[in-house]
């Protein structure tokens, strides 16, 4: 019924009706009271004058009698029944009360009250508008918030100090709801990802099997062919019709391509059926030299400086050493490949750091491996997809590297986080500390070891 009107309009009308009613009631009562008082006073005085005129037999002029009676009396009209008759000498003067004069006199006397009534009315309406303003603004924000959530964005409504308690409650509830919705959306995303991965895993498992079997057969046939060629006597090899150098070259290419295909299939299989980690105490200090030895040639080839740094010494984590190396290698290669296409003038650097996590992760201290680069960063529109399998921006990439890294980190009970900007990208891997880690025993005496360049 009131859907066309705003709360402010409704409140304004309600308050105005109340104010008008109050003013009318107060003024009406006051005016009525004054009217009755004035009328009875005039009547009383008229009666008294009539009695006196009968006793004393006045002989005054008509104007003098009217002056004595006051402004509320007038001469009766011929058809009116007089209210008082005053004997004035030989004649009788008939008079009637004049209500109009009483009203005029009343209004003149009560004009201040009328003015105050008008002031009160305006003030009441202005108050109504202001109160409804205070009430409706939080509603407006909530409505906006609901629209934002419907659009899929996350919002938090701020409290308005002018709003009453109920609106604070409402705002809190809304914010709580928005948070829960956001969590629910995250859970939905995770579930959906898991489903997709499971389906993908099944398919890849079958596919890898189907590819690997003929691939093994091809490899055997190729080896036999190679052996066959190599068994040709040397004298025959030199003759022009038996020139086997070309055949050897073709076999070499085939060999390389089979290896590549095998690598892809192995990667697929390691994604689908991750290897069970062999958990042991691993010193992160020992991982770094290996990384340098493996990655340095690649980095130098691309003109990239590879820097390793021990933030803390003697950090022992519980993990699979081989898997840790695999993780670091994957992330570092990713960084190297990302920076390879950068303009030559700019300094390119990949930094691998190990130590304890600065902030508490999962409520306890953990080992940290950080791989960062000063590349162009990851565009915001693809950030949420980089851990998805087969998502790649490289022409010859499989899109499995980061996906496998995440799965591996999950497998060893760690967590992976990523931060990116136009200044570069950083991956943090938090790994549970091994028992008897020096951190627990000697935390207080431990001083941050100076930055140490182990290689470049």
């Amino acid at each position, binding site marked *: 019924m009131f859907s066309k009107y705003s709360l402010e309009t409704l409140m304004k009308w309600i308050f105005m009706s109340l104010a008008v009613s109050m003013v009318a009631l107060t003024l009406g009562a006051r005016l009525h009271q004054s009217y009755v008082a004035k009328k009875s006073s005039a009547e009383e005085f008229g009666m008294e004058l009539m009695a006196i005129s009968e006793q004393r037999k006045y002989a005054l002029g008509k104007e003098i009698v009217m002056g004595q009676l006051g402004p509320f009396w007038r001469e009766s009209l011929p058809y009116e029944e007089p209210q008082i008759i005053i004997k004035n000498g030989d004649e009788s003067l008939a008079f009637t009360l004049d209500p109009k004069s009483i009203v*005029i006199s009343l209004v003149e006397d009560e004009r201040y009250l009328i*003015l105050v009534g008008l002031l009160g009315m*305006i003030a009441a*309406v*202005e108050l109504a508008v202001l109160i409804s*303003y205070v009430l409706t*603004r939080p509603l407006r924000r909530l409505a906006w918030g609901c629209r934002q959530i419907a659009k899929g964005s996350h919002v938090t409504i701020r409290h308005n100090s002018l709003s009453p308690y109920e609106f604070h409650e409402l705002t809190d509830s809304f914010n709580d709801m928005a948070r829960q919705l956001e969590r629910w959306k995250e859970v939905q995303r995770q579930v959906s990802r898991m489903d997709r991965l499971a389906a993908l895993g099944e398919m890849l498992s079958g596919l890898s099997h189907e590819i690997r079997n003929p691939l093994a057969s091809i490899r055997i046939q190729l080896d036999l062919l190679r052996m066959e060629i190599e068994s040709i006597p040397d004298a025959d090899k030199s003759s022009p019709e038996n020139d086997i150098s070309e055949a050897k070259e073709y076999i070499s290419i085939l060999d390389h391509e089979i290896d590549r295909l095998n690598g892809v299939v192995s990667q697929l299989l390691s994604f689908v059926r991750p290897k069970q980690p062999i958990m042991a105490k691993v010193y992160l200090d020992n991982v770094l030299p290996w990384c340098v030895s493996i990655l340095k040639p690649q980095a130098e080839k691309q003109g990239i400086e590879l820097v390793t740094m021990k933030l803390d010494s003697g950090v022992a984590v519980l993990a699979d050493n081989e898997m840790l190396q695999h993780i670091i290698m994957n992330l570092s290669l990713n960084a190297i490949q990302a920076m390879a296409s950068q303009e030559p003038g700019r300094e390119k650097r990949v930094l691998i750091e190990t130590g304890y996590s600065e902030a508490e992760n999962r409520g306890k201290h953990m080992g940290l491996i950080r791989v960062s680069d000063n590349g162009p960063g990851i565009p915001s529109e693809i950030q949420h997809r980089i851990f998805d399998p087969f998502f790649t921006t490289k022409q010859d990439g499989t899109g499995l590297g980061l996906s496998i890294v995440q799965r591996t980190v999950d497998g060893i009970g760690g967590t992976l986080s990523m931060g990116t900007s136009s200044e570069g990208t950083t991956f943090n891997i938090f790994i549970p500390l091994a028992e008897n880690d020096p951190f627990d025993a000697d935390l207080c005496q431990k001083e941050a070891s100076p930055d140490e360049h182990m290689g470049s």
Partner: protein
Amino acid sequence: MSPLIYYLLAFGAYTICIIMMTGQSFAWKETRLSFYLGGRKFSAFPTTATFCATWMSPLSLVGYSMWLYSDGYVAFLASVNGWILGLLFFPFIVQRLRMKRVLSLPEWLEKTYGDTRVRKLVAVTMIFLYTLYLVIQFRAFGVIVSYMLDIPSGFASTSLIYLFVLYTTFGGYISVVRSDVINLLLIILGVTVAAAFSLPSGFSFKTAAGVLLMKGQLETVKTLSYAEIFSVFAVMLSWGLGVAGNPQYAVRILACRSEKDAYKTIAVTPFIVGWIYVCVTFFILVCRSHYPIINDLEETLSFARLGQFLPSFASASLLIGVIAAAVSTANSQLLLAACSLCYDLFPIKMEEDKKENLVYYEDRFLVINRIAITLIASAALLLSHAGLPGYLMLGRISWTLVAICFFIPLFIPSWIIKDKLFFVLSTALSVQCFLVFAADISPENAMLAVLILEALLFKIFRYSAAYRGREKPEEKTGERGYV
């Protein structure tokens, strides 16, 4: 029946009418654009109504009337001619103003001439002159209400307009326009009824012509000395230029739905305003010839007393018309003063670091704006009880300041040298204040001198720049360069 009853009834009806039909409530989706300019959605009819209602202030009605009553047609020549002269300038700025899509005139100056200091300077001037102007409205309203309700002129009577104006201004431009439509109707009704019932023998064209051409009326013009003619010309020019550059009208042009609507408004306004002036002039000339006895009283009180020669209902209509004029001008000026304070002088920035959402920002901005409206109105209410000069003097000071600030930048942009505008305007305003307040020269004469000074300064800067060869000709000035 006693006139008091009529006055009380008329005033009560006006109060309820304003409460019920204006103000309304704050828009659900209000923004700065909707608050200052009504979202630029107004057609020609409401714009014309608000244009004319804002035009008719107590200065136009009471100040002019009492000048006419004392000096005859000279007042008409100097003031009405001047105001109408100002109206003729508006068609030239419609396109120029609307092209920038701004919310205020100081912002337009900044966008056009690229100097934030000019915006701030003009905003300060606007706050000052509109507060002065508000004093005129408050004072006139207080006097009329005290006369109508037979109460002492004081805080009670002026506090009514305070509430009226706050009520109508809080709703922003939309609310102001809504109240202006009612106010204009009341003004037209009041002056028309006054003119129709002013002749004791009843209205007829013959007697009306007799009054207009009565001996003594025209003599006031014929006997003017050269000095007086110059003075009249100066007043006419200053008021005309003041009208032409007045941001109250410029804002209404900005708020129009389209350029066509703006032109329609400018085309219709002279007829409505002209009709009101004709009626007022006729009523006052009748009073001047038949009842030349009211003098030595405060201007508004004298005007109200002239109403006693009318039948009670006509007198009530006329006085309500003056009240309507005061309210309509006051709310418009209050909105502009608050805009200058909150939008131009101390613009409230969006909290960039917090990525404040627009809905919060607009809310916060408009709440602060409403606080500013209350503060400015309160200041004007207090000043209306201070011993400031009469309406005409306050009006003359305000008009001349408006003309100095806006006339050349609005109408002769080809003279402006961008980087010198702030210097020229601040110099001009300082000189004007010195001449008026310290040297006691009349504001109009001072204004003419200051406008010449402004023009000279621009010319000197241009020639000196050209002489030094610092500026390329196409970069110097010129409307094409800016618009």
